[in-house]
């Protein structure tokens, strides 16, 4: 049984193919660029290619993320909280707190042993706590996005940012550059400002191990270090955590399919 999970986020569309709810067959990601449905089709094509299956071979498709209602061929859609929590537990079964930092929103969820979301908190009103802030910094500091993390790791004395607002922080950062603050310290300051915002969301739902980091920024080593340093605890990180929400929705799709099968058998019997 093959189930697909599609996460239609603000920054990228992520997809996962899951076999029997256990084995990851393929992952893919394409930037959203304003036309999510087109990017989603591309993700499905790439998934099929990697797993060597035809689109018709996907038994059940479950969507999540901002754009989850835009895909007509979906069988089910689930909220971002549910899917990314489920994905975190799939990767790290001991997870009790999920931190999901995406392009346009950041959220934290506390989860039960069975994977139910107990409490959640989200920031979607303001760019300061989200990946968009890092993207903007990348632009005006002229450091490619993928180099920001590795460069930040060289920081000895991170330059903290006092502005809460992403736009006002820009002025502050540019002033720091002109005052000669080393680039790694500036970059680490950016990540720390994000991790401090995430920390206040985390405190709201309750901090307890294990903590699992998922979402768009999980591939950024600077962000991971900042979260680790801010929380003062070990944080679970895995390469597939970038796909956590897509993975979670593929898993939930599988569970639903099983239930449907049982129900069908029940009526027959």
């Amino acid at each position, binding site marked *: 049984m093959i189930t697909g999970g599609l996460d239609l986020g603000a920054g990228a569309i992520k997809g996962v193919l899951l076999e029997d709810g256990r084995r990851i067959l393929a992952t893919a990601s394409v930037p959203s660029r*304003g036309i999510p449905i087109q990017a989603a089709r591309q993700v499905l094509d790439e998934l099929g290619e990697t797993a060597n299956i035809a689109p018709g071979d996907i038994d059940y498709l479950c969507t999540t993320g901002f754009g989850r209602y835009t895909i007509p061929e979906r069988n089910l859609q689930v909220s971002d909280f549910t899917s990314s929590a489920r994905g975190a537990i799939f990767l790290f079964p001991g997870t009790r707190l999920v931190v999901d930092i995406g392009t*346009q929103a950041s959220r934290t969820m506390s989860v039960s042993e069975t994977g139910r979301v107990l409490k959640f908190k989200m920031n979607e*009103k*303001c*760019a*300061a706590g989200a990946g*968009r*802030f890092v993207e*903007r910094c990348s632009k005006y500091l002229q450091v490619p996005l993928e180099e920001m993390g590795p460069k930040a790791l060289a920081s000895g004395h991170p330059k903290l940012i006092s502005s*809460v*607002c*992403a*736009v*006002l922080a820009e*002025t502050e950062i540019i*002033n720091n550059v*002109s005052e000669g603050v080393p680039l790694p310290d500036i970059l680490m300051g950016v990540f720390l400002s994000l991790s401090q915002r995430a920390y206040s969301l985390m405190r709201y739902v309750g901090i307890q191990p294990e903590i699992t980091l998922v979402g768009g920024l999980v591939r950024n080593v600077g962000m991971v270090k900042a979260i680790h340093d801010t929380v003062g605890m070990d944080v679970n990180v895995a390469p597939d955590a970038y796909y956590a929400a897509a993975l979670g929705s593929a898993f939930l799709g599988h569970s639903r399919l099983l239930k449907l099968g049982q129900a069908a058998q029940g009526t027959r019997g």
Partner: protein
Amino acid sequence: MSVVVAGVDLGSTTAKCVVLGEDSQILGKSLSVVGVDIVKDAERALEAALVDAHIPRSDVAFITGTGYGRYKVYFGQLVVTEISCHARGANFLYPGTRLVVDIGGQDTKAIRINEKGEVVDFAMNDKCAAGTGRFLEVCANALGYDVGEIGPLSLQARRAVKVTSTCTVFAESEVTSYLSRGKDPKDILAGLHASIANRTLSLMQRVGVEPEITFTGGVSQNQGMVSALQRRLGAPINVNSLSQYLGALGAALHGRERITGGAE
């Protein structure tokens, strides 16, 4: 002894200076964009206003600094908050003022004042660029305009779009997506101005909306914003070409009171 006084308003985006003569007539003024070295920017603002006034610096008896960078006006003898200065300046220009709305480059304030130009209450947003001049600037650039052009353009709108984002960064994305959906930039601009007017009104309501209302700060020179605010309020507001200088003017007036001991 000469009683020429000067006020320097060192804002987040521009520096303003006003030089006042003996009868509190404006002898000279200046407006310049601030850079990284705001200490120098303050000096330049004063020098430019003195050139405009055709008087030497030695004629100025007292200088007051105000604004975001007021502690960097090192050559001044007094520092007063911009809230008191806008209140004083608005009272001077429009004595009937009871509510001052100051929209600057980086913050927004609503200041309720009494008939003497003293502050009774105020509310401000200085944590976030939403609803400030910076918001307009970012959105103007996203549409390919200069911030000075967008007010008049917004007045030509036929059907304003609804801008839902509060955050400047997200509003910028919203503007871009409206553009890509083929919306008329003028309609988008009208939507942006209406959204700031809404935000400003809620700030004003926190201190109490009472006429007369005087609009100060850099954004007061944006006709689109004046019109959006008036439409939202359903009442006229005081504004003129001096509105942007009211912080500096108020600072100069505070300085004058200091040297005359308030006996004027």
